């Protein structure tokens, strides 16, 4: 006991003394118990000797009074108890014997289960599906929403969130603010990070587009992460002497360099400028933004210095993350930050010129990083977690029902065991161990399911401009939740059968006429109830799935472009640092000209964003000369885009090669925009002003196209305008190519070849069809819709199994009754309807409970539905019909068996 415990004792006075005594005696108890567990022989021998001695001494005394030894021993045994009973009593009084019998029960359960491998297999598979589905979905939601960053002391991290004048939150703040904040005594340190696409090349190979993050030099030290290779940026860079260094991400290092351990010191080129590899970031670190994993990181240039090859390196705006000093609260820090940022935001030219300047800075916990690309999926994921929970409940019901049936048929076994002295508690515990064993096996299988289906979500997430990557290696939270689900399942499925199997007295169980026993009827009633609950829950899942699927269908039907699988998209990134305004226009025109001339190509055009927006939607504020205004979506396109996509031109003309930098600025609008601003007037020739690169320009309207859901399939078409790519320079345009045949593979390689002929330094990436991008636009709906449909199918299967099992059992139980009915002249059809009628009553009851619940859930998810009312009669009718057909089938097989009952055999049965 050192000083610490001394002062502790002083503080708490006598209390601690008592506590210590209790702890000491607990420890002694534990030690003695462990000794008797592990030195069983020795301890048993000692007890033997002691008790024997006791009995001998008692006998000797009797013998002194003149009894024969035999009589004396008999008398002592009668008066004081026998050796064996005494030992049993003493042993049962200790905790270690409890452990020991538990172990026996576990072993016994294992043997019982291995004796019926068929049942065990089905039970484990059913439960594993329930646990696996839960673990998978929870792990995904956890990775997307709740996971803590794998950095040192994540609790002290805060994110700085700029708030715009209209109260909207954005991300980037002036980089200088980081310096200001380092000088306050609120934060122990501050980092900045900002990212963009870069053209990467290595040893003279073709350019590849990667995402690079430019970070402040203290980035790795700030986060306290141990890199896989190297030490982060060099000491010089950390001191402020910039050098062209990069730290690769773990995954980029594995993919592009094959995990080569000698990669440090090699030179790569980014936008043609040489950088030296100084490190590889740790495997579990992705970035401070959920779903984002930039291929490499470079140090930010010091203020006032720039590199012509990359504007990103001297970017004046970035995301800021800070670390609170110990003892400083987030509210206090926010006040300090806001005060430090006011002057800076006011003086910042760029900020003040903005339509909607930043005027405040809000602080949020940075423990999980910023929600990033996964933020829109929050609701979808939560709904899925909930639905997966329902599936788990359903599998538990299903299994409870199976175990009840098993318990009923084992009642005689339990009665025999009770008759030879097993207490009810022991029997219940034994049953319980069995269900726990089942749950543990299923939990292990469930984890296997989780790790094999882990990347399921990836196929739903849009993979375009940024590859959305989630760290799906289960963390502690995921593992605990899987373990929790397993134990919960073990308890849920074990309770009812354990008590049911052991509740009846011995005589009832031993009676030969078990068919009449009351216990059976009770168990059957329980199973009926459980099946009804299963029907209700599966109806709930199925209707949800139906509503979601129909929403997706409705949205897909809105696709405004004919044959979208015949439109190929090639994203290109001519680095602005390498291609100035004039060169990029020439490049654009050349790309379109060459591609259009390829065989098999019907039309080709460029668009800055293109349908569904490669990065998002561009928006602008439009006003006419006489003061009418409208906000409109906009895109910057080349001639022939409308032909390529299949958007009809209603009035006027398309852009042409004659519209160029020298001629007057022109604009094409859609009919919604035309109606909004000009009502019934002819819009052709009208002037509309909007700001381009921070200057107001007047555009003349030369054409009107059909309104379409250009950027978003979820919204009815908003006003839309198109500007000319030759007049408003492109940045990262997408080449759209409409091909004649449905086999676009050859065209893809031909187009790539043309690009190589023009310039090998222009990276081409994200090659896909317009249909793929439309699907990306529906990612959230598809994620929920498809996964819910899978859950619904699983639920339907479980209900079918459950109902089949119940009806088969019921037919077996009623064999004699059916035999009598047949003997009295009942026809096949009557027997058939007797059984199916029983099954269908269960289904109808389940539906009666399930439908109202489904309506409630449908209204809860109403915001996630498109083009249909939550009470959509079609969805509800279809789903109920499908459920009816499947359950009828599940009843049909047992019913057919019932009709084959031979009255002679049945009446002799048992």
């Amino acid at each position, binding site marked *: 006991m050192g000083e610490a415990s001394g002062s502790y004792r002083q503080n708490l006075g006598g209390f601690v003394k008592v506590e210590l005594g209790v702890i000491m005696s607990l420890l002694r108890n534990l030690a003695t118990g462990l000794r008797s567990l592990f030195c069983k022989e020795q301890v048993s021998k000692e007890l033997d000797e002691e*008790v024997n*001695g*006791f009995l001998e001494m008692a006998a000797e005394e009797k013998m002194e009074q003149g009894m024969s030894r035999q009589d004396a021993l008999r008398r002592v045994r009668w008066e004081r*108890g026998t050796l064996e*009973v005494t030992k049993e*009593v003493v042993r049962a009084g200790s905790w270690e014997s409890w452990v020991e019998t538990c172990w026996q029960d576990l072993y016994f359960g294992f043997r019982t289960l291995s004796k019926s491998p068929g049942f065990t297999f089905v039970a484990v598979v059913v439960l594993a599906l329930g646990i696996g589905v839960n673990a998978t979905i929870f792990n995904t939601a956890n990775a997307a929403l709740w996971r803590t960053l794998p950095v040192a002391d994540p609790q002290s991290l805060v994110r700085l969130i700029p708030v715009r004048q209209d109260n909207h939150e954005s991300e980037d703040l002036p980089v200088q603010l980081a310096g200001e904040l380092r000088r306050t005594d609120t934060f122990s340190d501050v980092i900045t990070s900002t990212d963009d696409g870069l053209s990467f090349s290595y040893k003279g190979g073709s350019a590849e587009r990667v995402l690079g993050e430019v970070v402040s030099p203290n980035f790795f030290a700030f986060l306290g992460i141990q890199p896989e290779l190297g030490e982060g940026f060099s000491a010089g860079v950390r001191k402020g002497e910039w050098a062209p260094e990069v730290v690769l991400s773990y995954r980029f290092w594995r993919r592009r360099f094959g995990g080569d351990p000698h990669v440090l010191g090699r030179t790569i080129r980014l936008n043609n400028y040489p950088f030296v590899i100084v490190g590889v970031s740790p495997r579990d670190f992705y970035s401070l933004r959920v779903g984002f994993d930039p291929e490499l990181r470079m140090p930010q240039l010091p203020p006032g210095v720039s590199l012509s090859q990359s504007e990103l390196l001297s970017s004046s705006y970035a995301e800021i993350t800070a670390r609170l000093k110990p003892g400083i609260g987030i509210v206090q820090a926010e006040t300090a930050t806001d005060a430090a940022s006011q002057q800076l935001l006011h003086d910042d030219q760029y900020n003040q010129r903005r339509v909607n300047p930043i005027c405040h800075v809000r602080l949020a916990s940075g423990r999980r990083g910023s929600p990033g690309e996964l933020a829109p999926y929050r609701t979808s994921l939560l709904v899925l977690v909930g639905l997966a929970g329902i599936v788990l409940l359903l599998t538990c019901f299903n299994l409870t029902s199976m175990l009840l049936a098993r318990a009923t048929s084992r009642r005689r076994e339990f009665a025999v065991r009770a008759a030879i002295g097993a207490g009810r508690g022991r029997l219940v515990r034994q049953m319980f161990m069995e269900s726990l064993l089942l749950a543990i096996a299923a939990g292990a299988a469930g984890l296997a399911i989780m790790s094999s289906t882990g990347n399921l979500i990836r196929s739903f997430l849009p993979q375009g401009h940024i590859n959305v990557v989630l760290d799906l290696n289960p963390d502690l939270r995921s593992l605990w939740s899987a373990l929790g689900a397993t134990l919960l399942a073990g308890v849920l499925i074990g309770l009812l059968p354990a008590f049911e199997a052991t509740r009846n007295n011995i005589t009832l169980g031993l009676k030969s006429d078990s068919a009449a026993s009351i216990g059976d009827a009770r168990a059957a009633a329980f199973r009926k109830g459980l099946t009804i609950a299963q029907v209700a829950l599966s109806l709930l899942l199925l209707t949800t799935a139906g509503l979601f699927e129909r929403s997706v269908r409705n949205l897909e039907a809105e696709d405004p472009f004919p044959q979208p699988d015949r439109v190929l998209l090639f994203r290109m990134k001519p680095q602005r640092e390498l291609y100035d305004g004039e060169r990029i226009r020439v490049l654009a025109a050349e790309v379109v000209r060459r591609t259009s001339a390829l065989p098999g190509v019907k039309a080709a055009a460029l668009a800055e964003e293109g349908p569904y927006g490669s990065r998002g939607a561009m928006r602008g504020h439009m006003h006419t000369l006489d003061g009418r205004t409208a906000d409109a979506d906009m895109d910057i396109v080349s001639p022939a885009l409308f032909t390529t996509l299949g958007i009809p031109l209603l009035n006027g003309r398309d852009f042409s090669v004659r519209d160029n930098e020298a001629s007057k600025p022109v604009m094409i609008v859609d009919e919604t925009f035309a109606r909004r601003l000009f009502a019934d007037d002819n819009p052709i020739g009208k002037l509309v002003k909007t700001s381009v690169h921070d200057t107001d320009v007047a555009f003349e309207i030369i054409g009107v196209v059909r309104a379409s859901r250009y950027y978003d399939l979820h919204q009815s078409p908003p006003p839309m305008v198109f500007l000319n790519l030759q007049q408003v320079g492109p940045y990262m345009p997408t080449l759209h190519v409409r091909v004649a045949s449905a086999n676009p593979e050859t065209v893809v390689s031909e187009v790539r070849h043309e690009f190589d002929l023009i310039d090998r330094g222009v990276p081409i990436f994200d090659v896909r069809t317009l249909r793929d991008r439309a699907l990306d636009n529906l990612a959230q709906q598809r994620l929920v819709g498809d996964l819910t449909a899978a859950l619904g199918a699983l639920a339907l299967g479980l209900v079918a199994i459950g109902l089949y099992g119940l009806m088969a059992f019921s037919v077996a139980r009623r064999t004699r009754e059916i035999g009598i009915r047949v003997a009295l002249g009942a026809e096949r059809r009557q027997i058939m309807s007797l059984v199916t009628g029983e099954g269908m009553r269960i289904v109808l009851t389940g539906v009666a409970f399930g439908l109202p619940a489904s309506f409630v859930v449908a209204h809860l998810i109403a915001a996630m539905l498109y083009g249909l009312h939550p009470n959509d009669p079609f969805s509800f009718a279809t789903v109920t019909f499908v459920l009816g057909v499947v359950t009828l089938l599940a009843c049909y097989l047992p019913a057919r068996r019932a009709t084959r009952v031979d009255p002679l055999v049945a009446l002799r049965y048992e």
Partner: protein
Amino acid sequence: MPDRSSDLVQGTLDMLILKTLGLEPMHGYGISIRIEQMSQGVFRVNAGSLFLAIQRLERAGLIKGEWRDTENRRRAKYYALTEPGRKRLNRETREWGRQVAAIARILEAS
């Protein structure tokens, strides 16, 4: 099997064992004989209850066992009161006296 110790108030057996051992260290049979003698045959303890109680007391650290030879040259485990055991005995004796007096007052009140 007559087990008159079950007539004992719950927990009193522990107290009686402590009391017996308070006089001198003793083996199991000695304890049971002493209890029988002192109660003038009212309490007879069977082996199961006795050794269960001894196990409990030993694990709680109130008594301590040691193998020794008896006067009849037989090996037996002798139990002695530990310091915490002596304190517990004193406390329980006081408490018991208080309770008995109180119960007696209640019973004699009518």
